[in-house]
């Protein structure tokens, strides 16, 4: 399936840093014959220096994509190309320095038995990037300063820090090896709203200062719009629409994107509900036995018999604006 028509969502250019083609990640579930299709044929690309936001409901496979790209899971099918090289099956060791990840939960992503210095220094220890203790210390101190922590914090343990500080320790660890690409796996979802802004701005600041490229996974649409250049919308393991951030918010093409955007609350106390709100009926189908054809058809108000028969492919409906829906051709 690696080369079927749905791959056209990814247009390759010279500046492309990461290119994913027809990526599939299926998990075996105990007691189930069919695999759980966490990611089911996703194609996308990320250019150097840009931030690609990935949104979708919980369980739609956003985090799985991030982890599969880093080969933390072995992909079931598809191709991952990084900086022009196919890394789907290679030894990841040289790429670990270049691609890093920041996790969602700052409470479980730091080993409680290691000091902050050792946590931030672990990437250096693993990849043996220093010749002396001093050199190691300097790198750790530099990364801690970069995220707004002190060198005095090096001998402390994670439980002595707040959620926001812990998340910054995670970021410092991810930055230790000077990566160029960071998967941000819902890095702010577990934080208080007041802290979220702090951490988000830290991400933006680092992107400018260090020239980083992000894959920014989140379910908060406002946050994604704020930080991303381009956004992809996922539903049940498939990418349904991708476009520039402003284009997506002003001209959503896919019915699912339209529904998602219509429920963003407007900060106006006089308005109880948005008049244009689209309420999706029913539940998200199980990724073990998804519906035939278009996965969204069971909850789509425009669904036609065609949607049950054929899987819609990604098509370009504007400059850099791709969507997968039969309705776009007037056939639905």
């Amino acid at each position: 399936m690696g080369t079927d028509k749905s791959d056209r969502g990814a247009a390759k250019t010279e500046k492309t840093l990461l290119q994913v083609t027809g990526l599939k990640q299926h998990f075996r579930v105990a007691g189930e014959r069919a695999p759980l299709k966490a990611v089911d044929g996703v194609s996308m690309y990320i250019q150097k220096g840009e931030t690609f936001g990935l949104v979708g409901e919980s369980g739609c496979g956003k985090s799985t994509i991030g982890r599969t790209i880093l080969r933390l899971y072995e992909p079931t099918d598809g191709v991952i190309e990084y900086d022009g090289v196919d890394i789907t099956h290679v030894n990841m060791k040289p790429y670990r320095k270049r691609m890093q990840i920041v996790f969602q939960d700052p409470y479980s992503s730091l080993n409680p038995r290691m000091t902050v210095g050792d946590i931030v220094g672990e990437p250096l220890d693993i990849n043996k990037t220093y010749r002396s203790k001093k050199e190691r210390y300097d790198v750790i101190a530099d990364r801690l300063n970069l995220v707004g922590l002190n060198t005095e914090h090096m001998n402390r343990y994670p439980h002595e820090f707040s959620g926001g500080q812990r998340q910054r320790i995670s970021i410092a660890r991810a930055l230790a090896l000077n990566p160029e690409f960071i998967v941000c796996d819902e890095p702010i979802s577990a934080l208080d709203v007041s802290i979220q802004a702090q951490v988000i701005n830290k991400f933006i600041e680092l992107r400018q200062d260090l020239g980083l490229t992000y894959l920014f996974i989140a379910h908060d649409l406002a946050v994604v719009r704020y930080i991303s250049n381009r956004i992809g919308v996922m539903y049940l393991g498939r990418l349904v629409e991708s476009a520039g951030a402003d284009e997506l918010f002003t001209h959503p093409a896919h019915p699912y994107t339209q529904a998602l955007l219509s429920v963003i609350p407007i900060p106006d106390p006089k308005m109880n509900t948005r008049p244009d709100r689209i309420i999706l009926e029913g539940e998200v189908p199980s990724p073990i036995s998804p519906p035939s054809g278009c996965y969204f058809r069971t909850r789509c108000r425009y669904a036609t018999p065609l949607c049950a028969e054929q899987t819609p492919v990604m098509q370009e409906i504007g400059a850099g604006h791709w969507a997968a829906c039969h309705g776009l051709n007037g056939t639905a």
Partner: protein
Amino acid sequence: MKPIHEREKLTGELRIQKYTQPMSLMLNIEDIAPATEDQKKSRVKMRESTTYWQDALKRFSQNKVAMVSFGIIVLIAIFAFLGPLAAPYTYEQQIRGSERLFPCFAHPFGTDNLGRDILVRTMTGTRISLAIGIFCTLIVLVIGTLVGSAAGYLGGWLDNMIMRFCEILYSVPDILIIIILQISMKRFLDSAFPNMTLGSAMVSIFIAFAMLYWVNMARMVRGQILILKQSEYVLAAKALGASGRRIIQKHLLPNAVGAIIVTAMYQIPVAIFTESFLSFMGLGASAPLASLGSLANDSLSGLASYPYLMFFPAMLILLIIYAFNQFGDGLRDALDPRLKE
């Protein structure tokens, strides 16, 4: 207006005035000037960072029952390992004319029908019990941790095989295995180590314990590893390119060590009790060596006339097992971070 240097002089005079006239409202500007950066820095005090072990030690020392139990264990250990050195008799020495003595000044625990001092025999018996408990637990610790972490970390068919094997071992009655082992290994052990003071029966108890009791430990370690393996910091270490060996050593085992120590601590009284039971049945220590169980067994024949022969060893078994269990409870409360929150 005076020139500047004169005015400064004046402030100096005013300052003296301030101290000579207590009611003066004149303030000295220098006293309320904002602190410089250096002064601020000297005030900053970093809170002492507490490690997991310091935390655990603090919690443990606040637990009275556990501390008392720990004290009892230390006293019993001194009694068992230093006592025989200080005593004027050996455990096998038969003192003519002092047979069947009631506890008295020369023999605080009395003597048996052969004139052997019960105090010294109890001391050596306790030594054997403690040694069995500790050595067996050490063996269990090593085998259980290795097998358990391999099964938990690698998973798949290896995990399946190991766990099925554990279940089989678990379902076999341990007394049966110990007896079979003792009988089948007696000839081999006697010919291999002819001058062993411990006796072949005791050695086969060691071997049997090691073979049987690692199962619990392995299961526990595997469960812990399975939970910890899912944690995001392990995933983060993988994303950094850490090897499996490093992940087990730096991330999984340090976080499982509390549970491992607690399980090992609970293993000690179990081993001691089983040894006492086997010796009581005549399957453990062979004469003239004494263990607490065999001492209790020896006292059975004259129980109505010489009850103290039974009292002291039985009392020690009870004390040891009670103290180790309470100590284990205290350790669990101190080391298990889930109870902290």
